[in-house]
């Protein structure tokens, strides 16, 4: 029982990381049909931003790194959308390969600039250690990541619900043609979605520096799981992404505990396939009139 409870924060923090990464993916995929394999490299960019700022700013660099990483990764995403992805709408499989090509180049670039070995970002003093709540050990860094993810979800939720830009975004996700007919500049909405999604990947990258080393392959490690969250959650749905990230995070955490890391991945995959037998559209699906 104690072990069961101890695994709870671990599952929660896995879920939080997955959620931070999947938030951006689910909207670029759901709204534009773009399968962005370079999303993982935006995570890497965010992590390296934290690493560079650590040298430049010092002690409290983490808090500075969050907005800076958002801006750097977001602008990079904007550049990618504007230069390449724009030409590929309606060809989702091609965007997958295209962005994978971009991701290879970015990884090698990181290897050439920062070197192949991993680098370390030291967490600030107030994130070292942990607290005991009801006999369960809560490490500070994992609490911080979970709170960060919750904050991002809240932010995206408010953006979608309250701001005019968010309303336009929802409209494009639901029906692109109709949104365009109603006078929404879909191209501009696409760009802002990409900026937002890539920026969130940068934030996720900063968060990941708290739980592990930073290397050129950082993004590839998480991208596959994050895509599973998107598929299981349903496209372009905030609620779906949250639910799926929680489910997969806990599943990962507990299965790793009960079996082992290698079998856990296989079982998670089997669970997703089994889930798709019941709900092929994902947990939260858009109701539409299209076939299939």
């Amino acid at each position, binding site marked *: 029982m104690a072990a069961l409870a101890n695994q709870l924060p671990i599952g929660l923090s896995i879920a939080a990381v997955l959620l931070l990464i999947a938030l951006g993916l689910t909207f670029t995929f759901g709204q534009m*049909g773009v*399968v962005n394999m370079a999303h993982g490299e935006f995570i890497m960019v965010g992590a390296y931003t934290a690493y560079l700022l650590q040298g430049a700013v010092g002690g409290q660099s983490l808090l500075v790194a969050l907005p800076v990483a958002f801006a750097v990764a977001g602008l990079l995403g904007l550049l990618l959308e504007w230069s390449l992805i724009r030409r590929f709408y309606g060809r989702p*499989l091609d965007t997958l390969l*295209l962005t994978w*090509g971009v991701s290879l180049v970015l990884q090698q670039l990181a290897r050439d600039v920062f070197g192949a070995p991993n680098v370390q970002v030291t967490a600030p003093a107030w994130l070292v250690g942990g607290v005991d709540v009801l006999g369960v050990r809560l490490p500070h860094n994992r609490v911080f990541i979970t709170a960060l993810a919750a904050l991002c979800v809240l932010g995206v939720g408010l953006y979608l619900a309250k701001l005019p830009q968010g309303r336009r975004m929802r409209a494009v996700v639901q029906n692109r043609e109709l949104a365009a007919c109603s006078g929404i500049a879909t191209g501009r909405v696409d760009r802002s979605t990409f900026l937002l999604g890539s920026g969130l990947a940068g934030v996720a990258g900063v968060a990941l520096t708290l739980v592990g080393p930073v290397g050129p392959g950082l993004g590839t490690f998480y991208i*596959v799981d994050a895509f599973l969250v998107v*598929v299981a959650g349903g496209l372009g749905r905030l609620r779906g992404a949250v639910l799926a990230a929680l489910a997969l995070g806990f599943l990962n955490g507990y299965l790793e505990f009960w079996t082992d890391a290698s079998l856990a991945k296989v079982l998670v995959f089997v669970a997703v*396939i089994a889930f798709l037998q019941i709900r092929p559209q994902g947990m939260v699906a858009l109701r539409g009139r299209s076939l*299939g």
Partner: protein
Amino acid sequence: MSGRISLVLCVVLLAVAPLVLSPFRLGLLAKYLCFAIVAVGIALAWGRGGMLTLGQGVFFGLGGYAMGMHLKLREAGPAGLPDFMVWSGVEELPALWKPSANPVFALAAVVVLPGLVAFLLGLLVFRQRVRGAYFAILSQALAAAFVILLVGRQGLTGGTNGLTNFSRFFALDLTDPGGRRVVYAITAAALVLTYLAVKLVVRSRFGALLVAVRDHEDRVRFLGYDPALVKTITFAASAVVAGLAGALFVPVVGIISPALLGVVPSLELLVGVALGGRFSLAGAVAGAIAVNYAKTLFSEDFPEGWLYLQGGLFVLVLVFAPRGLAGVVEAARDRFRRRPREEVAG
């Protein structure tokens, strides 16, 4: 007619290669041919069927491990255990390995195992009308899980090192250039036969149905066909082809390991197909051979450059020539002949 002439030309080239190439280069060519066999399967599933499979490394690996396990057991020491098991302290042959001692079982497993896994996955996924990018993502997740499983089960699979140190391939001595020439000949024959078999499938009624499913799945369903079954069978066929290539890869290169099978290698298998042209079987074969040859060249002289080139190739091909080099050649030929192409009803 010109297609037949170039096919004969290619077969002649493959037959002449052992006479002119050094044993080392011949071995490399045989490796490229293995990847070309996988490319034929990918061109069938992706080009004809519209199923972008990012998990082809899994099927390549299943075929490779099925073959590798059998070869390992043939060379096993006095205790009947492969060398790596002795090193990791395994004392009795695991039950999973026992059937592999039988050569008939092992050869059957090479094609049946990948086919079965793909058929099962395809059935579960396509029946629920999960398709397009979703399918691509799921196949990629399969590749990721497969590799983690292989690495994690050290005593059973050899872990990160995989299966290696093969000295014999059935009756053939792999340390002898003569034996390696025979292995090359088998690989070349397998490529030609696979190519012809897939060509037959593409030209058959089933091939026409497959293209119809790719272009308008719902319409095919309304006509009374079962698109899920068509896709599942095609996907399984491409997996069988990949398994065959994996099994040949073991005697050709002498190793099968997780590093060859994961998410990245599975995507690398696509580079050649995308470059050569996914809609053309011959283009896919040529692309796979060319890309792997380029990889060898770069790795010898300029290793860091390869990832830039590979990434750049993907971007350039998709932006400027989505139909690959085969598409460029076709367009050029059409312009040269100044013959209007037949209009295809939409």
